[in-house]
């Protein structure tokens, strides 16, 4: 593609050395590729290393400061007191609630994601394959807030879900569920059930993609061989498909777990007044002005995700990403 462009200049077999600064630079990079590499890496590493990692360290550092309870000023002396505060019953409650929610959301998205991923990987061909791909990609990239807003419309007391259940004469089911402790509430949009549904909805595409990637690599004849050897579909799933899809599920669960741990907008808009980690961080650094405790709270998801990633790596989940 460039021959035409170059031919006009290459009248002689050996070109004269390029003139000026440009030629000199070009020669220098050719002779010292390490220098070019360094120059290429410098801007991104400076940006990410200083701006991003620098800020992260500054944040971690602050978690070892404490706040003076009377003056509200930050006491810049090394202490573990803030981490002690983290272990108060109210804060432990928040952590436990968030981790439970993250685990439930991960489990539910894995169940809903599997059929879609399996169909797309094994049966969909040509146009259908493209359709499935876009069908997962478009919701994934649609606006996060719009998706939450859509569920606020759906779950509202006067919304479409109540209307649908009324038409089906199933309202007693909804009322029964809402009267339960913990999962229930005044309406679905102010209950933990609502929070759960929206979390599953928003993070589901993140589960489908890696599971599909893992299933694409399962040869079809493996499934056929299993049924030829007399396994029922259930046995084939348990002994062949599921173990092979597991790294994909674990890879997807990294997203669903991590994203649920850190989110503070979904439980704020759809859910009860009981806090999640993200909301605790937000209110501690904002209205309460307790940056050290907020910083200590952010350490919780980092530690949990660190352990999670370590476990996932041992299961070979990163190959499925």
């Amino acid at each position, binding site marked *: 593609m*460039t021959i035409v*462009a*170059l031919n006009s*200049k*290459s009248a002689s077999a050996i*070109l004269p050395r390029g003139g000026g600064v*440009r*030629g000199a*630079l*070009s020669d220098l990079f*050719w002779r010292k590729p390490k220098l070019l590499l360094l120059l*290429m*890496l410098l801007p*991104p590493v400076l*940006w*990410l290393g200083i*701006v*991003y*990692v*620098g800020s992260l360290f*500054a*944040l971690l550092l*602050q978690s070892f400061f404490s706040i003076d309870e009377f003056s509200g000023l930050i006491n810049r002396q090394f202490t573990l007191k803030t981490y002690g505060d983290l272990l108060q019953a109210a804060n432990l409650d928040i952590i436990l609630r968030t981790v439970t929610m993250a685990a439930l959301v991960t489990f539910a998205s894995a169940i809903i994601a599997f*059929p*879609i991923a399996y169909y*797309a990987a094994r*049966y969909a061909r040509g146009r259908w394959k*493209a359709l499935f791909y*876009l069908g997962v*990609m*478009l*919701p994934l*990239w*649609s606006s996060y*807030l*719009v*998706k939450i*807003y859509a*569920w606020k*419309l759906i779950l509202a007391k006067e*919304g479409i879900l109540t209307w649908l259940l009324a038409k089906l004469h199933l309202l007693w089911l909804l009322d029964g569920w809402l009267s339960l402790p913990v999962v229930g509430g005044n309406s679905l949009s102010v209950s933990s059930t609502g929070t759960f549904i929206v979390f599953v*909805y928003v993070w589901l595409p993140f589960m489908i*993609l890696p599971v599909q*990637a893992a299933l694409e690599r399962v*040869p079809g*004849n493996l499934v*056929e061989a299993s049924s030829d050897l007399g396994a029922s*579909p259930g046995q084939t799933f348990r002994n062949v498909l599921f173990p092979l899809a597991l790294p994909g599920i674990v890879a997807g669960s990294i997203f669903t777990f*991590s*994203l649920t741990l*850190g*989110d503070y*907008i979904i439980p704020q808009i759809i859910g009860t007044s009981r806090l999640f980690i*993200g909301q605790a961080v*937000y209110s501690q650094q904002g209205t309460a002005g307790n940056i050290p405790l907020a*910083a200590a709270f*952010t350490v919780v*998801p*980092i530690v949990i995700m660190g352990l999670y990633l370590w476990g996932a790596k041992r299961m070979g989940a990163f190959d499925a*990403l």
Partner: protein
Amino acid sequence: MRSDGSPSAPLGLKIAAACGLLFLHLPIFLIFVYAFTTEEKSFAWPPPGLTMQWFAVTWNRPDVWEALSLSVRVAAISTLVALVLGTLCAAAVSRTRFFGRETISLLVILPIALPGIITGIALRSAFSLAEIPFSFWTIVLGHATFCVVVVYNNAVARFRRTSGSMIEASMDLGADGFQTFRHVVLPNIATALLAGGMLAFALSFDEVIVTTFTAGQQQTLPIWMLEELIRPRQRPVTNVVAMVVVLVTLLPILVAYYLTRDGDQIAGSGK
């Protein structure tokens, strides 16, 4: 490779997959219906009537326009920064093996792997430590940081498919480094960069979690929407804005898909 032609899927699987896809798409369609409803005070379904008047009302709202303009400007600048940084990083990582190469990949992915709230609060506390006031540039700083990864992913995938011998051939034919970049490397990676840029734009245009920490009093469009979700002022206007946002983000995704579909990489996998 399958031994026979195309086996059809069991009915149960078809139904489960179809239900899953409907679950993903119906809520977004609902947004389109609500943009036309005549109901002002509640989310009542079915809509009592349909009207176009809210489009006119929204059109005349200066706060919506200001938020939209800020979002577009932030997304444009962040995308530019991410394009430069992401391409440089991808070129360095894919061309050579060097000490710390894995660390660089980790560094790029970290802003998106850690929950947004951590990135947000880390940047905010860094701004307050360094006494940097909130401005247009503090938003860009946050956005560009997590947009790099999308460009990087797309560029790395394309570099992997571009054979190094083309670059050597170009050098052998007498092109200098800059000519090789301009006439050989750039045409090869252009569509991948365009796709990465589109996705970065969509990512930045939609970002709300990090932005709440780095924006101060300024309102990007997602912040405006968040405000409306928490303290609704005029619900029909929110409905219309929501629909427009869906349409605006749809377009770059479709374009990015068509630009990279024949490759083996997944354009959106970076989000």
